[in-house]
């Protein structure tokens, strides 16, 4: 099972017998045509689809942001009006948080994690297909609602009573709540897949200490999803029940409590920020290691910092509620936790600087995006310390200062590394390089535009401009800085257009650069770019955290996996010793059908509680179809059984 033979890491393709490859091709390929498109369970196809969909939502959210900036460019502006503006800022926040940031991080995980740990597909591949469909349907539902003038207008946080039945009239807040349910179901599914893949499907020899930092980050993110998302599903469900069937969870007159909503929402809402931020830290580590030509300094410290961030991330939520009547003694605990969470991130920043210092930096576009992090995210983190102080927070909370802070953290901490990651892994996905000159335009326009747009907001907040206002009186004197911010937003838009042009052009015409253009060290570069349907053949064995650097002459490999069934190697949790072989399921229409049935239930339950009753019948039928045992599988299992 572990016969070892040498292999050229940068030129994987020619090795192995071609007949074997053909059989593998046949076993792992996705059926052709639209049927294949609907039934595929290939993590690379689903991952790409996930990334492209999330990017479309990023563009939609960006267009909404531009509309808001146009409205705020001058005082007393009448461009949008409060009704439309409230819908737009709610849609912007909901889109960016639920339909872009979290899904795109999951999507990168779905695409990269199986390649990084050296396996042939993600764990639970049909669940993976399901999670994409349910996410897509949730997003389409929200945007259909928005185009029909039923876009939510109560903020991405939907505070009750404003989002409750009396003040949130119509169905707008219901669509918000159901969008949350959709995307959280999807996120939970992806989290389970990623954890299982990293824990049980690693290449032989990839002990926990050798797991790449990005895979670690994805695991921490997934655990955070598993602990945080149930809170918000509970919140959105109780909100729907208050609105649809008149329960009183949030009605103070009947013993409910408006503050309860805030606790439930922020218990999820703050970890959400780290769910977005932690994978980005992993991407930072990958890019810095490759472009410094050395492993990241202090691997153990980095991993501990990721885990610590994930744990402390759950102890901060009340700092969103410092202006409420939570007792002060309670708030003080959250001040301490909110300040101390800066420490693990600071350590990571120091380790990266030490990596650059002791390495040999190569200045390519991915590294530029990563270097911007050292200015933008650090600034955002420092303003975060200001929000951690109870008394100072009461001055800046819910003002444009917080708008500036959160964009510095989320754009600097997640979107900049993500763009770096696009440039870095684009050759992996397509086999072609993105244009470097366009990349630099993309970077500098984004960097300058970003700071122009968001830095003035710090001052606006301190000068008294609250968030979520559709306009402001001229006499407040906020016009100049707001105009500046709008100009900056225009530059960001230009930068994103440059990126889109770059991708569209280079997808077909970019330079062909071989399998490992950056001569990186992690396993995803050990196969062809783009990878074949079966990812690896033969399946590699690793002996260090950067296997491709350590064995210049080639990696040892594992043989003995079936090439006629979709078999992957399952390894032990800590040492990654070979444990057993597991057959993964192939393409199926059932995930799509189940997702459609569940989507019908969710959308129907916006209008009538009976949708839950009648809608559960198709869902149950679809799930029975999905899990109905096949004849071949049953026979095989019977054959394998050892009689007592």
């Amino acid at each position, binding site marked *: 099972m572990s016969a070892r033979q040498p292999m050229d890491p940068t030129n994987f393709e020619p090795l192995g017998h071609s007949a074997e490859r053909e059989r593998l091709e046949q076993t792992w390929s996705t059926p052709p045509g639209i049927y294949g*498109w609907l039934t595929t369970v290939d993590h690379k196809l689903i991952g790409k689809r996930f990334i492209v969909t999330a990017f479309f939502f990023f563009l939609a959210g960006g267009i909404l942001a531009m509309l808001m900036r146009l409205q705020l460019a001058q005082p007393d502006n009448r461009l949008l009006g409060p009704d439309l503006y409230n819908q737009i800022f709610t849609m912007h926040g909901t889109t960016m948080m639920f339909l872009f940031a979290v899904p795109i991080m999951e999507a990168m995980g779905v695409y990269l994690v199986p390649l990084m740990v050296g396996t042939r597909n993600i764990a639970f591949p049909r669940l993976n297909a399901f999670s994409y469909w349910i996410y897509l349907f949730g997003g389409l539902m929200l945007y259909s609602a928005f185009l029909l*003038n039923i876009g939510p207008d109560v903020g991405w946080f939907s505070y009750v009573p404003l989002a409750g*039945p009396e003040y949130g009239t119509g169905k707008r807040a219901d669509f918000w709540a159901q969008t949350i349910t959709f995307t959280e179901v999807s996120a939970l599914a992806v989290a389970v897949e990623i954890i299982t893949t990293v824990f049980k499907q690693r290449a032989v020899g990839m002990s926990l200490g050798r797991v790449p930092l990005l895979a670690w980050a994805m695991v921490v993110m997934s655990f955070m999803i598993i602990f945080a998302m149930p809170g918000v599903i509970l919140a959105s469900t109780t909100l729907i029940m208050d609105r649809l069937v008149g329960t009183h969870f949030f009605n103070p007159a009947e013993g409910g409590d408006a503050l309860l909503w805030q606790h439930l929402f922020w218990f999820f809402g703050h970890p959400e920020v780290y769910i977005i931020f932690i994978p980005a830290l992993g991407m930072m580590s990958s890019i810095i290691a490759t472009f410094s030509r050395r492993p990241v300094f202090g691997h153990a410290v980095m991993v501990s910092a990721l885990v610590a961030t994930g744990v402390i991330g759950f102890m901060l939520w009340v700092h969103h509620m410092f202006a409420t009547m939570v007792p002060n003694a309670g708030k003080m605990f959250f001040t301490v936790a909110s300040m101390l969470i800066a420490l693990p991130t600071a350590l990571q920043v120091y380790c990266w600087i030490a990596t650059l210092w002791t390495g040999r930096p190569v200045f390519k576009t991915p590294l530029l995006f990563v270097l911007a992090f050292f200015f933008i995210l650090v600034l955002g983190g420092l303003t975060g310390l200001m929000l951690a102080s109870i008394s100072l927070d009461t001055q800046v909370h819910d003002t444009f200062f917080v708008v500036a802070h959160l964009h510095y953290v989320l754009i600097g901490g997640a979107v900049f590394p993500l763009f770096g990651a696009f440039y870095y892994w684009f050759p992996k996905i397509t086999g072609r390089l993105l244009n470097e000159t366009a990349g630099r335009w993309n970077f500098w326009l984004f960097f300058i535009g970003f700071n122009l747009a968001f830095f003035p907001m710090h001052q606006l907040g301190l000068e008294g401009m609250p968030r979520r206002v559709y306009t402001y009186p001229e006499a407040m004197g906020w016009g100049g800085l707001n105009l500046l911010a709008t100009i900056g937003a225009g530059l960001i838009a230009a930068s994103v257009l440059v990126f889109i042009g770059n991708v569209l052009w280079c997808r077909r015409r970019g330079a062909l650069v071989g399998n490992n253009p950056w001569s990186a060290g992690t396993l995803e570069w050990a196969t062809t770019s783009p990878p074949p349907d079966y990812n690896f053949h033969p399946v590699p064995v690793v002996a260090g955290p950067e296997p491709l650097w350590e064995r210049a002459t080639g990696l040892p490999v594992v043989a003995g996996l079936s090439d006629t069934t979709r078999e992957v190697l399952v390894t032990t949790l800590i040492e990654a010793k070979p444990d057993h072989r597991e057959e993964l399921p192939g393409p199926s229409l059932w995930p799509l059908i189940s997702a459609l049935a569940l989507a019908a239930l969710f959308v129907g339950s916006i209008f009538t509680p009976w949708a839950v009753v009648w809608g559960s019948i198709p869902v149950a039928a679809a799930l029975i179809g999905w899990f109905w045992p096949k004849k071949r599988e049953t026979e095989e299992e019977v054959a394998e059984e050892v009689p007592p």
Partner: protein
Amino acid sequence: MKILRGVWIAMLGAAALTGCEREERNFVEPPPTSSAVESLRLSDLRPGPSSPPPAAENSAYQENAYAISEGQRLFSWYNCAGCHFHGGGGIGPPLMDDLWIYGSEPQNIHATIIQGRPNGMPAFGGRIPDYQVWQLAAYVRSLSGLTPKDAVPARSDHMSNESPPTTMEKPSPKMTGSPP
């Protein structure tokens, strides 16, 4: 892939054509209504729900969540609840049942509010703007389930909407005076 996209766009287009009357927010009142209202002179003695069909411009209020919610707010602000309570009736007749003394069409209710009715219902004509009367009519109709369910909130944020069954039988002592 393209087929799916096409199907979705077609569905969306179809839905957009029908529009979503439920969700409009008309902050600025619509243009003055025709004199249809003026010509509507129902005899006070004529009971039952027979009435002219609703005028098109007012149906916008009937299925509109914002109008119904505004009607709900005005119902308490203009102290309708002082006599009718929250629909259960007290000094004034209950509004939650399906018994309509002067007709259940929006125009009937509009006329009742504008002109007043014998035995205590004051005339609000000249006191409250016309569009608010239509909003009130929409809310009053929603109390007995005459408006689409998806435009009506499931509950209000107050305790009172829980209690009509008991308060109906025992009018509160505060309410013994005659209505204004």
